[in-house]
């Protein structure tokens, strides 16, 4: 292979993880017969969305997203220079690559479809956002009420004989299929408008880079950002609950170290406490469908299902309120600063470019609310509902002896769940024990062990050949993958930790390396958060930390946006901060220059 990264075909399997390939469908593995072609391509680790090794079932989140990106880029909008994104699994981690179009004639013919279609979208943006919301709401409503049938000892007379319904086994299979369909449909909607929003951002950034070569991307992003987005709402509700606890005089219940159950038990003991619980219930829907992750793993539960994170955050906010802190985000101030910066930039441009600048900034600000809020509806609300329905399917399988625990269903991939349901249907109807009751338990135990071994392995940021150019706007903007970054990765990184200067300021502090979202409770006040990637639901930890550093992420990534909002220094897209830095290291985070220095 050419100069560049290691071949995806030469990556060793970590000891104890042998056989990991069996967890995934054949079409997601590197195919030996295609080695010559595939190792000449550039593959990068999508740790931003998939920071952990993928449980078998959870691969649907990647498959569903990449299908939709390809559908819109390749077949609907016909983006002239790029088709879709391909993905593969290596040692349980997701690697992706762009399929770019280079033939000038193909580009030209795609352009003829592309122009009128995106013109239609930008011109009718508001109407289309409304249509989008209605479509999403309908699917969320259906997922909410979708019934997962049990398999009874005796079929119901009314249903089977008088209503002439299908057998419960068929209806169980159909319900599972419907879950998958609704999830795929939500993911199709996910990319309908988003790609166009990113295209607008990138255009604005490129314009600014040409006009203001010294300007950091953070300043450009700051000009776009709004501060009233749906994604901020769940965190605002937690702040409201903290204020309510103080108002009712029950803030003592949120003593440090208590579990949510202990807090609730304490609150149940008084009228004021019960009033607080009532307030909690009234605020929960739908905001507690926020997931503790980014909506790509079944074990990142919604706040409603795993209240540890929101309760810890409420406790933190209660403490800050007692200290007299102001929790409300200084929206007015942030907006005033945003507008001041935009006006200053605009005034520095010649007349014609001022008009372009206004138009582009206007477009970006127009699409910004959708680009942010879609995450809540798709990745959080819709995805949490989807995984919970699959849990119900898992519960049926567990009832019939396939597994010990309904959660084990997530160690089967989507096709294996189909097979298991066929197996169950046959066995239930025919009266024999299902084969799965023997087949799955040892395999699930093995898969759990494999995932544990894979979690200890650090995936390299990139594999294959170094590309000359990166055309794909999403790849540049969201993952921060640029030619410069690649060279740094290929060279094993410059000395020290370098990334994007995502939020300004310089801070020294003790590092806390957090690899798993479930460990964010361990973060202490004033520590520097070092993580592979942050998800929007991590917002509650930002008031606690003094700076943020991530392996993966571009200027519009979540850590960057939220750090700017809290005024914390942040360096994102470092590639390997979690590997270089250990918990307890004293580090200096320079958010002005994008460097992190380990001090001792």
């Amino acid at each position, binding site marked *: 292979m050419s100069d560049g990264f290691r071949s995806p075909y030469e990556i060793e399997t970590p000891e104890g993880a042998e056989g990991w390939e069996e967890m995934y469908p054949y079409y997601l593995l590197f195919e030996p017969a295609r080695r010559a072609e595939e190792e000449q391509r550039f593959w990068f680790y999508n740790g931003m969305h998939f920071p952990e090794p993928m449980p078998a079932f959870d691969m649907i989140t990647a498959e569903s997203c990449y299908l939709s990106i390809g559908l819109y880029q390749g077949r609907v909008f016909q983006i*002239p220079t*790029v088709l879709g994104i391909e993905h593969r699994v290596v040692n349980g981690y997701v690697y992706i690559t762009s399929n770019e179009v280079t033939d000038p004639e193909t580009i030209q013919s795609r352009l003829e479809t592309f122009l009128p279609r995106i013109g239609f979208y930008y011109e009718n943006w508001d109407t289309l956002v409304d249509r989008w919301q209605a479509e999403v709401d309908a699917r969320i409503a259906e997922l909410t009420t979708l019934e997962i049938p049990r398999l009874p000892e005796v079929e119901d007379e009314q249903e089977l004989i008088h209503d002439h319904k299908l057998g419960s086994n068929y209806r169980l299979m159909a319900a599972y299929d419907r879950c998958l369909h609704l999830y795929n449909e939500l993911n199709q909607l996910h990319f309908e408008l988003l790609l166009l929003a990113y295209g607008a951002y990138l255009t604005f950034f490129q314009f600014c880079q040409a006009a*203001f070569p010294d*300007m950091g991307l953070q300043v450009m992003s700051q000009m776009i950002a709004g501060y009233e987005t749906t994604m901020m709402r769940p965190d605002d509700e937690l702040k409201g609950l903290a204020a309510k606890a103080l108002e009712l005089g029950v803030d003592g219940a949120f003593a440090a170290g208590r579990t949510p159950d202990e807090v609730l038990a304490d609150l149940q003991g008084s009228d004021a406490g019960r009033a607080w619980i009532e307030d909690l219930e009234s605020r929960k829907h739908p905001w507690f469908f926020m997931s503790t992750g980014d909506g790509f793993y079944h074990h990142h539960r919604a706040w409603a299902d795993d209240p540890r994170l929101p309760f810890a955050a409420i406790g933190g906010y209660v403490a800050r309120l007692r200290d007299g802190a102001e929790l409300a985000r200084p929206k007015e101030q942030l907006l005033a600063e945003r507008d001041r910066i935009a006006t200053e930039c605009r005034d520095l441009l010649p007349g014609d470019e001022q008009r372009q600048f206004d*138009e582009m900034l206007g*477009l970006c600000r127009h699409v910004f609310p959708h680009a942010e809020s879609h995450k809540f509806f798709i990745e959080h609300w819709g995805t949490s509902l989807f995984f919970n329905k699959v849990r119900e399917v898992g519960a049926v399988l567990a009832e019939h002896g396939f597994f010990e625990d309904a959660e084990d269903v997530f160690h089967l991939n989507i096709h294996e769940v189909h097979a298991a349901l066929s197996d169950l249907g046959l066995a239930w109807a025919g009266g024999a024990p299902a084969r799965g009751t023997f087949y799955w338990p040892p395999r699930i135990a093995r898969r759990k062990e494999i995932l544990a071994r894979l979690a200890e392995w650090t995936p390299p940021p990139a594999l294959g050949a170094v590309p000359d150019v990166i055309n794909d706007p999403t790849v540049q903007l969201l993952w921060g993958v640029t030619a410069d970054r690649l060279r740094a990765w290929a060279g094993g990184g410059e000395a020290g930790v370098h990334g994007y200067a995502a939020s300004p300021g310089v801070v020294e502090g003790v590092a806390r390396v957090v690899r798993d979202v479930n460990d964010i409770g361990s973060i202490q006040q004033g520590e520097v958060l070092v993580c592979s990637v942050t998800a929007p639901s991590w917002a509650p930890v930002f008031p606690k930390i003094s700076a943020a550093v991530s392996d993966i992420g571009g200027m519009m990534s979540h850590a960057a946006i939220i750090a700017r909002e809290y005024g914390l220094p942040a360096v994102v897209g470092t590639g390997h901060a979690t590997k270089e830095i250990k918990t307890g290291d004293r580090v200096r985070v320079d958010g002005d220059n994008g460097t992190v220095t380990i001090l001792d």
Partner: protein
Amino acid sequence: MHVVPFRALDLEDVALVGGKSAHLGDLTQAGFPVPPGFAITANAFDAVVEQHVDGLLAGLDTDDVAALEQTAEHVRAVVESLDVPEEIATAVAEGYRRLGEELGLSDPPVAVRSSAVAEDAADASFAGMQSTYLWLRGADDVLAGVRRCWASYFNAEALAYRAQHGGAAGMSVAVQYMVDARVAGVMFTINPVTGDPSSIAIDASYGLGVTVVGGDVTPDSYLFSKVTRELVRSDVGAKEIECVAAPDGGGTVLREVDEERRARLCLEPGEVARLAELGRSIERHYGRAQDLEWAIDQRLGEIFLLQARPETVWSQKRKVAAAESALSLVVATFMGGKPAR
């Protein structure tokens, strides 16, 4: 009127006080911290000088180099030893006294410079009338400096240039407080390297700014964003030497900068921000990028603006892109930067 303070001058006074003083007056009136001073008008020059030299220059053949040199020398000697009329001498002394009062200094050091009254600035500089006398103190020395400036109007080169091109129409003299710089340098209100108009680039070193302007030191360099109003970058320069006022009170000397001062930035962050704010307001005032010289006075602690010129390199290079719509620019993005055919 023979003596006018800068704050009473503006660009309409070019015929009276020359371009240099009119410009300093304009900056002063706009509220910029130009070192204070006053102009001795072209009327004074006319009243004192012209009557004495008209006869001496009659019939001069400027092509005859030897004769030209000889005449010029003679005229200059005459002018330098002129009896300045009481009225004008008093006005200059009074102007100087008031300057001291304004600064809170008795006998403040001043620079005395010629400020030619010419059709345009190019004529003025080509005419060879750029005399400057630095670190003068006391009314007598100032008046002597004024006479020498007047005399420089009759340099051989100046005479020859005017004979050929015409152009200059008299001589004014500027008397200006001599900034005793702790730190000085230049400032561009556009990044001279990248052309970024949102940046302010500052070069700074210890002592007077001549070492920076003349390239005698590697200065500290600072890049400041007009937009975020933050220091983007600062680099420590070697700053081996500094040009400071001579201990005996006259002129300047070069001396070495010690290791400790060399190793650190010579400007405090607050000073950089103040300088940048000054640069930005001058740029706004003139509506275009500026190339500025500045100094921070060690006696007064103030920032002084010494010179303001329009920046010419990037201001001319910057081309306005075709007025494409935002949508067509977005299309170009999806084309991977290639324009749509």
